[in-house]
């Protein structure tokens, strides 16, 4: 899912950087002093979640969980996921430097969209209903992410269209898995710590 340096056209890279800066600014505005520890610890959790490999048939995929990040963090998912990508690039050599903006938008924009759309639905109703909405959100976030990745590749040149298609189809199983896992994660959280969602319902940052 990571795009590397040198593949995208300058226009796409710059557009990505500008959009990421805007998203991060929006996210930082919603982060008060009180919310910094929560956002920081969740950002670390999503980093750790990306280290988890889940088997799919003969192969395995690593988790992204950006839908879940959006549901829990709202706009703050933008800086939180950005921080994760920065650390991955610097200390693990994943992704790239100039493409950080594009990669952030590709992961965080779907997260925020899913969060804004489904947050209330996930927090209300029975835990099962919330979990189903969360599952839809988890799958939708991956679908949107692959969509945006495909768009950023295709916008950089026609030669990437086969690669863009490959990215999209290769991620269909990932959508299913992320949906299932997001749903179960929310089901557990709703049952174990319902008060978490009391605040989410009220403060829609």
């Amino acid at each position, binding site marked *: 899912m990571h795009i*590397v*340096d*040198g*593949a995208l056209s*300058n226009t796409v890279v710059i557009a990505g950087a500008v959009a990421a800066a805007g998203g*991060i600014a929006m996210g*930082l505005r919603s*982060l008060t*002093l009180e919310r*910094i*520890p*929560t*956002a*920081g*610890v*969740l*950002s*670390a*959790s999503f*980093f*750790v*979640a*990306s*280290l*988890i*490999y*889940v*088997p799919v*048939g003969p192969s395995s995929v*690593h988790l992204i969980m950006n839908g879940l990040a959006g549901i*829990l963090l709202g706009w703050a998912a933008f*800086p*939180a996921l950005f*921080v*994760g990508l920065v*650390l991955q690039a*610097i*200390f*693990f*050599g994943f*992704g*790239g*430097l*100039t493409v950080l903006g594009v990669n952030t938008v590709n992961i965080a924009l779907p997260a925020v969209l899913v969060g804004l759309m489904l947050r209330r639905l996930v927090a209300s109703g029975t835990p099962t209903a919330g979990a189903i909405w969360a599952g839809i959100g988890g799958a939708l976030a991956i679908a949107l992410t692959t969509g945006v990745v495909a768009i950023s*590749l295709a916008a950089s040149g026609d*030669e*990437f269209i*086969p*690669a863009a298609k*490959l990215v999209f189809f290769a991620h269909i199983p990932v959508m299913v898995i992320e949906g*299932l*896992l997001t*749903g*179960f*994660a*929310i*089901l*557990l959280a709703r049952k*174990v*710590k319902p008060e978490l969602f009391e605040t989410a319902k009220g403060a829609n940052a």
Partner: protein
Amino acid sequence: MAHVLEQGDTTLTETGAAQVSGLIGSLDPRVRILAAIGFGIVVVGLSSLTALGAAMVLSAALLWASRLPLGPTLKRMAMMDGFIIFMLVLLPFSIPGDPIFTLWGVAASWQGLWRAVEIALTANAVILALMTLVGTMEPVTLGHALYKMRVPEILVHLLMFTIRYIEVLREEYLRLRGAMKVRGFRPGTNWHTYRSFGYLVGMMLVRAIERSERILGAMKCRGFSGRIYLLQNFVLTAADRRFSVLFVIAMGLLICLELVWR
């Protein structure tokens, strides 16, 4: 990404952990960050293979100067290449031009092959420079340097929190996985696996949020006001200036190469 970590490795070294020294390690963190960004922007702009080859050599020289362990660093680079290999392999077939050979009726072109080589060189040169210049820094120093470079305070806080808690949460994850294992959990492609992993992620999040409540309490107790207090001040030394001048000259040479060998 988990196989990046060797057995017993920590995810990110925290304060006080063994630091890689060497020529790079003694430079001002701000200079290293700016150098990495400058290098990234210049190299992404290059397209001649000669210039990109020179950039790769420069990255390799930085790797040598940083005294990072060669094996693991190159292994990480190779893993990134594993990710992009599909895209690169498709390129010769999707860019029209002089054919090299034909596979199932689709011609592979030289132009496409060179484009793939160009992307591979760019990606590897930039990520290697980033890992050697910035990745050798203590993560906390990175946060302080970014703060000094006027990155918004809240973003730096978020970065420092993430750095601080990645290892703590990974240990928690490994504990939970261990607990699942002793109960006979073997991951496979089935409903039970996905439900268990979902609950695992959910449990991690619930615990993370509870932990963050305790952290907030502890921080309030110590009068946290959102300011970042630096433990050391960064001072530009003569060595930093020498490195900066050399680096700018090297960037100039790369651009010259690009212009001469188009």
